[in-house]
């Protein structure tokens, strides 16, 4: 790897200390045992079909002051920030494009993953997520309204504990509506991890790893789906791993339900936003009025002074 001249570099041969800890080498069985307790509940006390959304969904907008719209989503330990900037002209483009473009960039913080430190240069994971995000968002945005322009959407994953693509899509949807970009519908996303006969809804990092690593059964993998719930349309579907048709159909119906469950949360945030901005507007107007009155009063004083003079 060429040396990065634009950053400070550590020694080339450094490795994470976790490689030398005891739980670095665990086989599939141990892994599974740890994730599910004897009552069939997951680590952390969730039921198999219980999404983190319902335990804790901390979402807000307007976190980044410099951006047009921004949002922050926390699904227990998965933390994602998103900002959206004003449409801008596409540089170096010769042809007229009738549809506006979305530029999506997903980045992991160097300290976001449990294992090795992420390199600061973009890797294949990040690029794949960026493409997936772009594909998922494109059907939701009214792109014909800003031809020849592009909207920049930046996602930053501060901490990754599974389901980061759905979190990124949800965050981007919120940020886009915060930025008042015209959209057809709210966009929500969810994912499941499938390992044998077990289906983990809204999986954690461990569960995702488990599903991908499992090779002895037919069904294993992760499915992510994003939806425009009011329109009953699926905007993106992504599957990693292999599974039979029944399993896919089953997963789809679960995902559809999950996507719909998120809607009220998103709506609540957006409504709260509207209320806040309305109140702020009122406050500003009041202040403006006060100021004008003060100015007028001063004007009167000056006038009287002038008249006396």
């Amino acid at each position, binding site marked *: 790897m060429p040396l990065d001249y634009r950053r400070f570099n550590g020694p080339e041969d*450094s490795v994470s200390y976790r490689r030398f800890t005891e739980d670095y080498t665990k086989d599939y069985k141990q892994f599974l045992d740890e994730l599910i307790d004897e009552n069939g509940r997951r680590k952390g006390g969730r039921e198999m079909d219980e999404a983190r959304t319902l335990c804790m969904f901390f979402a807000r907008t307007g976190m980044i002051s410099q951006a047009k719209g921004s949002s922050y989503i926390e699904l227990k330990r998965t933390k994602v920030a998103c900002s959206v900037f004003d449409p801008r002209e596409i540089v170096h483009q010769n042809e007229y494009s009738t549809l506006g473009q979305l530029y999506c960039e997903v980045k992991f913080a160097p300290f976001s993953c449990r294992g090795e430190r992420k390199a600061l240069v973009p890797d294949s994971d990040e690029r794949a997520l960026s493409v997936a995000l772009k594909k998922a968002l494109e059907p939701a945005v009214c792109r014909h309204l800003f031809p020849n322009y592009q909207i920049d959407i930046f996602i930053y994953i501060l901490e990754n504990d599974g389901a980061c693509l759905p979190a990124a899509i949800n965050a981007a949807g919120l940020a886009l509506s915060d930025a008042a970009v015209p959209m057809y519908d709210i966009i929500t996303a969810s994912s499941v991890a499938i390992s044998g006969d077990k289906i983990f809804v809204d999986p954690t990092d461990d569960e995702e790893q488990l599903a991908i690593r499992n090779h002895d059964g037919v069904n294993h993998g992760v499915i992510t789906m994003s939806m425009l719930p009011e329109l009953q349309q699926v905007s993106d579907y992504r599957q990693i791993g292999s599974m039979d048709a029944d399993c896919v159909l089953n997963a789809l119906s679960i995902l559809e339900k999950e996507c719909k469950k998120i809607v009220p949360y998103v709506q609540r945030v957006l409504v709260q936003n509207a209320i806040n901005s309305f109140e702020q507007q009122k406050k500003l107007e009041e202040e403006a009025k006060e100021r004008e009155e003060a100015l007028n009063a001063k004007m009167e004083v000056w006038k009287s002074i002038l008249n006396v003079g």
Partner: protein
Amino acid sequence: MTSNTHTGTTVTIFFEDGRKFNDQRDIKLNVNAIKTADASAVVKCGNTTVVCGIKLELAKPKAEEPDVGFLVTNVELLPLCSSKFRPGPPSDHAQVISNIVSDIVTNSKCINLKDLCIVPDKLSWVLYCDMVCMDYDGSVVDACLITLMSSLKTLLLPSVSFDVETEEIKVDTTIKTPLPVNGLPIATSFAVYQQLSRSVILTDPTAYEEEMCGGLGANLIACWNKGQLCGVFKFGGSNLSTENEKETLALAKQKSKLVEKVINICIENKS
């Protein structure tokens, strides 16, 4: 409502509820919020938000300095935090900030690199401290240092056993010792605005104010550590007379004491 523009214009318009020239913005600090990092801190100074995460790694020390570990600090200005930054490798501005922060940390000698060595010539810790700016609204260096120092202060090093003969490394994460940190460098940014014959000095400027005073970044950064100056950087902006300089140093000293208190209280409450 906090619109923090302490009007840097020559015309006296309404000061509204803005700050005075030497007021600083509120600081919010949270430590160990990110569990995937070995230590982390989030700070919000007004709108400016910086997250710092430390990742621990092991490596062989350099042959020329066998008893010294590594401390690698980088500042990332993401395209997410402001429209001024484009995606891609770090801009010149990001590199300048990285350099200033790293300079201050080395100059203040708050971390003795020898503490990071486990077995001389064989094994030492590498501390990757990544500071990412989530919201760029001026005075980034101040915020970077606050998060970095809070993270370093809460960092726990797992115990490592190294077999000299077999060169086998074993890490026990159940026993952890804190990293000794002596001193607490705190930086304060100023923007120097030329107003006719005299200059106006703005403490803790926002991004807009920095821009008004000549381009990206603050004009003057003064850093105090244990009653000593461990870095004074003055670039661009209006030229500075001695009286103004003395005034800023005093202001920075005052602020450093306050921020030190904030950091200590925050860490105490967490532990």
